[in-house]
């Protein structure tokens, strides 16, 4: 696009062919994916309809209600604490999920990348199966483990470690466990891709220069696989922030995240402009994360 033309410039007709061949896919995507996002942005600045939907009158109420609420009687404005606690929970849980998946993901990716070529395909397959398995099924599986009569509590009670079941299900911890579980493969795969290209002689060089294992990890390995770390973190952080199924199933009605809060506005809440404003906000956060990601990874490419 704005990038200066390098090398040979393709003849005009190739570009035209490229656009023509891509056109059907682009049209479908614009009709049934990208285009409607624009409608969401528009709905966020309209007035709320009586039951659901909107009235076509310009209004900032939707965006106002993201952060503030008005007292019904004296119209005093105050911060909407309930909303803030939902945002805080979403951000907190998403960051925690990203950190924990990294803690498990780095050793796992390292392990796979250092297997002999023959068995590597097998370990990779083991990581991809959960990745492609229905998110709902994986959430059910975790629910089965952590519920009061589930495996974990039965096991702990049986061995006398606890006297009665710990209530994990329907807490923030349950949502965190669930998100870590379902998004772990998204962290492992890009880390694996980065480590796979890693030149292990560099580690040897590090040790030869009397670096400790920790120094080798911090000073050699982590800087080189940074693009993989950033990619994995983005891939985990974005879906965590917009998570809907996992908090709904494992958090119960109370421990809502932004995704559930948005749904509420289009369901029982019947406040479409607020729901649209929240969706637009979420989209903007994702956009900013992606821009940061592109900046970081392109900077790395020019340095390396």
């Amino acid at each position, binding site marked *: 696009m704005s990038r200066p033309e390098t090398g040979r410039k393709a003849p005009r007709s190739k570009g035209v062919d490229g656009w023509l061949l891509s056109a059907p896919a682009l049209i479908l995507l614009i009709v049934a994916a990208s285009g409607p996002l624009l409608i969401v942005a528009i709905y966020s600045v309209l007035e709320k309809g009586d039951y659901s939907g909107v009235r076509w009158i310009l209004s900032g109420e939707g965006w106002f209600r993201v952060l503030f609420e008005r007292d019904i009687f004296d119209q005093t404005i105050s911060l909407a604490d309930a909303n803030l606690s939902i945002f805080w929970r979403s951000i907190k849980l998403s960051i925690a999920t990203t950190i924990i998946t990294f803690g498990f993901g780095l*050793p796992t990716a390292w392990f796979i990348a250092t297997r002999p070529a023959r068995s590597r395909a097998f370990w990779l397959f083991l990581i991809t199966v959960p990745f492609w398995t229905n998110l709902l099924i994986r959430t*059910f599986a975790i629910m089965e483990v952590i519920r009061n009569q589930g495996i974990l509590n039965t096991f702990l009670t049986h061995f006398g470690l606890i006297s009665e079941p710990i209530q994990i299900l329907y807490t923030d911890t349950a949502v965190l466990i669930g998100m870590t579980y379902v998004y772990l493969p998204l962290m492992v795969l890009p880390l694996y891709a980065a480590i796979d290209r890693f030149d292990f002689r560099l580690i040897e060089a590090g040790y030869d220069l009397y670096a400790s294992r920790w120094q080798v990890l911090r000073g050699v390995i982590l800087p080189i696989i940074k693009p993989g770390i950033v990619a994995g973190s983005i891939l985990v952080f974005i879906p965590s922030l917009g998570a809907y199924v996992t908090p709904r199933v494992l958090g119960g009605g109370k421990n809502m995240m932004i995704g559930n809060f948005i749904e509420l506005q289009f369901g029982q809440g019947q406040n479409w402009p607020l729901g649209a404003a929240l969706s637009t906000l979420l989209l903007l956060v994702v956009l900013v994360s992606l821009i940061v990601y592109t900046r970081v990874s392109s900077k790395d490419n020019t340095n390396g």
Partner: protein
Amino acid sequence: MGKTRAFDVTTLPGFTFIAILAFVLLYAPIVTLVIYSFNGGNSVNQWGGFSLEWYAVAAQNEAVQDATARSLIIAVWASVISTALATMAALGTTRRGKFTGQTVIYVIINQPLMVPEIVTAVALLIFFSSVKVATGYSGLGYLILAHSAFCIPFAYLPIKARLEGMDTTMETAAADLYATPLQTFRYVTLPLLLPGVIAGAMLAFIISLDNVIITEFVKSAGQDTLPTYMLGQLRRALTPEVNAISTALLALTILILTLFVFVTKKRG
């Protein structure tokens, strides 16, 4: 730390342990779910002996039958449509050098991978609900359209990867022998590209079959797919029947993935 030279530089302390732990933690819940789907008796809490009872219950449940049929119909249509469009787009964007606006095409194609699903779901709810009112049509078309759209990037990636690995000499040879562009595509490019196309269609099929959020928001009343039916069941207690359906879906996913590995492995 001792300066013994006998250690393997690729080993880092604790890494293997955490990795093995990660694999165990990844699979233990799934294995538990599978085992419990074969549990006889009515309780999800007690083991009542091996039984296929809940599979029979699920198979005889009319709601499950309908939802399964609907899921399969949507997944077949969505994978056919998205794969056809993705193949065209991949042919248009690969092997022809850089052209103006290529980045725009990439961004639009990959957009469903970046936007949180809940946002797309809400957007489609708003858009389709007004279309439903305007046209009076409320059939499966909306679900097929939505699924086809978000399956495109998944179908596109393996096809593009395959195309990038193919050189153009065969096509040049065909053109030298006076084959028309259409003949070249039909008899040279397409057969070479086929493994990529099949792989793309498989991924699209799995993605469509698994979708929960967008389906939940776009479906009209009485249009449950298997995942939305399962989510709906959860409002009550966890039933062994849901475990049985989950295991069946899991088996289907693993089957398709194994086929996928075989299809993509054969380098023609």
